[in-house]
């Protein structure tokens, strides 16, 4: 994926997110111009940047959405929920396409119909009469018509509106079958969107002719309002035109027609024109061509007539059409009465005989070039005509014997052209004069609406990997810093210099302070407000509640609570699971709620509260709650608990059973949640992020899920201790206290070592056994590390306590990855590796 695409997707995703957020807000609290404006700008940005890449369907869809919003903004269209839903759908579609782009699995052919369909739906709101018309007038019925060589009325009227003879002129200029007429009326405000309609029209593929309708402007007119109407004729496939006009959807109507249909339409005109010309050679050639299919003669005759005489526009067009390589079968469809057929009975003249030989291809080419030269804008009769006439004369001499007749015709044509010029100048002068009288008294006042400019945000976008790298370096620095105390110790013990040791220690405190501030600064960079994740949820809640026909209100608190970015990302999934659960299983249907005496609309609270170095996230619903007895029974049925546990387990413990693997409380599995993997997965994800989850519930009142998560996952404070001369660590969060007790204080109850501290019974676990070391018998005093776990407090019997230390915990990799006893490793200042114990796992093997 290119870097540019990367940036585009990243930025556009932000735009998408903010747009859908605003949309949700609009749906909740009604439209406000600010919000519509913001969504409009977001979509505008996406549309604009997407054009850098070859993803036209996406651009078109974004454009359609943007246009709809523009109409809403201009109060031309009233906002309603249907529009909102459709816009959200469009945003979702775009987001899905971004996914495909990121994975490189995009298939534009698949995108196309989706884009067309959604785009048409969006545009139907702007102009209901155009519903389904989209960009082309061609409906299936119309397509059927065109195959029978008829032109749809709308196309015919568009052609006629351009010029009465537009059909024949277009026919004479087109070579391929796909022709089009496009009526492009740019929006008044299109200049402000950076559009340049005339140049767009000029660049239309296969452009053959165009008209720019420009009304006279009053002197106080706004020059930045586009008042032009452009009609263009050309030959190109529908696709090519639609692609070219992708940006201007909704501003143009495209009429498609085939050359064949045009030929049939022009048939009468062609025959009439030939009759008007009353040229025997041509008539005869036309007749021969129609009878024998030999069009060579006809082409050369018509070509010569074009070159030799000045005709009215339609006749000229007919002749140039006839001179091209054509198929005349269409002329025979009906036998024309009168005209060429009758008059062509006359015997061929001498000239005709010559013309039958036909012009050689290079001669024809030469004549065509001269013709082009004469009608070019740079044509100047005085300078160019002599050379042209000589050339044409030479060519004609080769073919014709009666040159005198031809030269006189050419001279007549020259006269005609020169007579025409003063006439045109007169017209121009009169037009100017009228404009002058209109405009002289007027004053100049053209106000330029200020362009809405987005406020520049003083933000710096940095690749996350750079921050991660910085974090790693800080981690290394922390480790390096930790080696200073060792150095001090060494200096004292081996070097015997207490002074040096003291100096090193003093220095350590400075380095320590700086490292800590550096570390917290880097951590700050990685901190993002939890709203980053939260803002996706209103949409989720809204969608799901509609799907389930429930009424649910989501209230969020503490969105500005900050979290480590990595943590937040790992948090998103479990929260979605929990929310889904609350929506699906928690909140009752409106009828049930009314019956239960609750308000019809259910409420889900999503609350983030900072607590020291952790954050508590609560998801609270006021639904039907969870019945612990039901859970107990289900857990027993599914074999999650034994019969004895069924008896002994208390309500709170029963509730926590929903986090057990393979447990689903819903009798009916729905597509939202309730596959029995959800809660288990949630718990795993939360504990992977170093957090804990618990739930409380009261039947009929609601349930609360409480997640306790560390604010950062990068630096851990661990307590070091020694077992069998080896260093281990345990997370400082788990440590409750450290005690040293004489051996006789340890009691045995039912084969378990226990210790009573301050009237509290604490089960003990000997780490030497648990970690597989030789037992160390005959100690008089034991060091015990009391740790807290969700199951209560436990004591770990160890050999020796060490200090607490900040470490960057690394996950176990390679051969160590299988050891569940350890949660990670860290590097100590003196180069040793510290294994960090996973207390829960160790206890489960030990007890």
């Amino acid at each position: 994926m290119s870097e540019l695409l990367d940036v585009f997707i990243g930025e556009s995703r932000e735009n998408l997110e903010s747009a859908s957020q605003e949309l949700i807000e609009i749906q909740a609290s009604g439209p406000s111009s600010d919000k519509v404006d913001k969504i409009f700008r977001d979509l505008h940005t996406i549309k604009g940047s997407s054009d850098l890449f070859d993803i036209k369907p996406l651009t078109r869809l974004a454009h359609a959405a943007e246009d709809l919003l523009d109409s809403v903004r201009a109060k031309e269209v009233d906002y309603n929920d249907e529009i909102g839903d459709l816009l959200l759908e469009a945003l979702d579609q775009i987001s899905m396409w971004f996914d495909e782009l990121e994975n490189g699995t995009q298939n534009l052919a698949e995108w196309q119909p989706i884009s067309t369909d959604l785009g048409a739906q969006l545009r139907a709101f702007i102009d209901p009469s155009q519903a389904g018309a989209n960009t082309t007038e061609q409906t299936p019925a119309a397509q059927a018509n065109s195959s029978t060589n008829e032109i749809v009325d709308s196309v015919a009227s568009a052609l006629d509106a351009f010029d009465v003879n537009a059909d024949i002129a277009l026919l004479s200029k087109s070579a391929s079958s796909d022709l089009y007429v496009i009526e492009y009326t740019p929006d008044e405000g299109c200049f402000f969107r950076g559009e340049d309609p005339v140049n767009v029209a000029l660049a239309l593929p296969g452009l053959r002719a165009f008209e720019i309708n420009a009304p006279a402007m009053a002197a106080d007119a706004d020059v930045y309002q586009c008042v032009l109407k452009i009609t263009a004729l050309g030959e190109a496939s529908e696709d090519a035109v639609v692609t070219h006009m992708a940006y201007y959807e909704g501003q143009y109507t495209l009429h498609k027609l085939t050359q064949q249909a045009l030929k049939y339409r022009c048939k009468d005109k062609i025959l009439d024109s030939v009759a008007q010309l009353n040229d025997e050679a041509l008539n005869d050639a036309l007749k021969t061509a129609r009878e024998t299919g030999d069009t060579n003669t006809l082409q050369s005759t018509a070509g010569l007539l074009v070159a030799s005489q000045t005709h009215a526009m339609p006749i000229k067009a007919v002749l140039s059409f006839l001179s091209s390589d054509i198929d005349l079968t269409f002329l025979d469809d009906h036998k024309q009465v009168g005209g060429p057929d009758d008059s062509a009975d006359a015997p061929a003249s001498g000239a005709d005989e010559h013309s039958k030989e036909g012009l050689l291809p290079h001669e024809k080419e030469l004549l065509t070039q001269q013709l082009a030269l004469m009608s070019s804008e740079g044509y100047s009769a005085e300078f160019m005509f002599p050379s042209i006439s000589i050339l044409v004369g030479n060519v004609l001499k080769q073919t014709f014997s009666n040159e005198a007749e031809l030269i006189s015709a050419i001279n007549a044509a020259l006269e005609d052209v020169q007579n025409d010029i003063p006439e045109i100048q007169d017209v121009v002068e009169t037009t100017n004069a009228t404009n002058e009288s209109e405009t002289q008294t007027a004053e100049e006042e053209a106000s330029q609406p200020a362009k809405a400019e987005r406020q520049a945000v003083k933000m710096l976008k940095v690749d996350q990997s750079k921050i991660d790298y910085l974090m790693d370096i800080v981690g290394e620095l922390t480790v390096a810093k930790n080696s200073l105390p060792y150095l001090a110790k060494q200096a004292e013990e081996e070097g015997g210099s207490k002074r040096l040791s003291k100096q090193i220690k003093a220095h350590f405190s400075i380095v320590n302070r700086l490292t800590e501030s550096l570390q917290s600064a880097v951590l700050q960079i990685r901190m993002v407000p939890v709203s980053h994740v939260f803002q996706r949820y209103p949409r989720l809640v809204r969608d799901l509640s509609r799907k389930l026909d429930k009424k649910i209100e989501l209230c969020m608190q503490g969105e500005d609570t900050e979290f480590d970015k990595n943590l937040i990302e790992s948090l998103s999934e479990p929260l979605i699971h929990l929310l889904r659960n609350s929506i699906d299983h928690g909140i009752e249907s409106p009828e049930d709620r009314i019956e239960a005496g609750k308000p019809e609309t259910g409420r889900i609270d999503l609350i983030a509260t900072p607590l020291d170095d952790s954050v508590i996230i609560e998801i609270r619903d006021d639904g039907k709650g969870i019945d612990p007895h039901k859970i107990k029974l289900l857990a027993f049925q599914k074999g999650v608990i034994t019969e004895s546990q069924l008896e002994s387990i208390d309500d709170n413990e029963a509730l926590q059973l929903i986090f057990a693997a393979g447990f689903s409380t819903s009798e009916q599995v729905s597509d939202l949640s309730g596959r029995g993997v959800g809660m288990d997965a949630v718990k795993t994800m939360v504990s992977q992020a170093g957090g804990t989850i618990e739930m409380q519930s009261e039947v009929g009142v609601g349930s609360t899920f409480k997640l306790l998560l560390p604010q950062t996952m990068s630096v851990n404070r661990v307590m070091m201790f020694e077992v069998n001369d080896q260093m281990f660590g345990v997370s400082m969060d788990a440590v409750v206290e450290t005690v040293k007790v004489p051996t006789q204080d340890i009691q045995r109850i039912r084969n378990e070592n226990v210790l009573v501290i301050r009237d509290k019974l604490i089960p003990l676990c000997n780490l030497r056994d648990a970690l597989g070391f030789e037992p160390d018998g005959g100690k008089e005093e034991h060091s015990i590390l009391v740790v807290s776990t969700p199951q209560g407090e436990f004591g770990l019997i160890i050999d020796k306590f060490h200090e607490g230390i900040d470490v960057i915990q690394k996950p176990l990799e390679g051969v160590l990855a299988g050891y569940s006893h350890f949660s990670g490793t860290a590097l100590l200042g003196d180069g040793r590796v510290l294994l960090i114990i996973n207390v829960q796992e160790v206890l489960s093997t030990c007890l």
Partner: protein
Amino acid sequence: MPVTYKKKVAVLTGHCEIEEAETLFSWLTEDASRQLNLKTLTTAHTAVFQVLLCLRPKVSVQPESSELYWIVEMLQSDNNKVWCE
């Protein structure tokens, strides 16, 4: 500067951006006898073309650029139709 305003004639050079449209429009409407020299004009924004097509000022020198054949034709004829050759 794409547009140089002289006493009677404004000379349009190269590509005329949209920003020129406003000044050009007011300059042309101030005095209807003012003319345009399009000799070295190559392209222009629609807004500029719009001023030319709506006000139809006298053109003292036609553009040399073949790209602009159509504006010449349009300003010379009474309709704004052009067939591409």
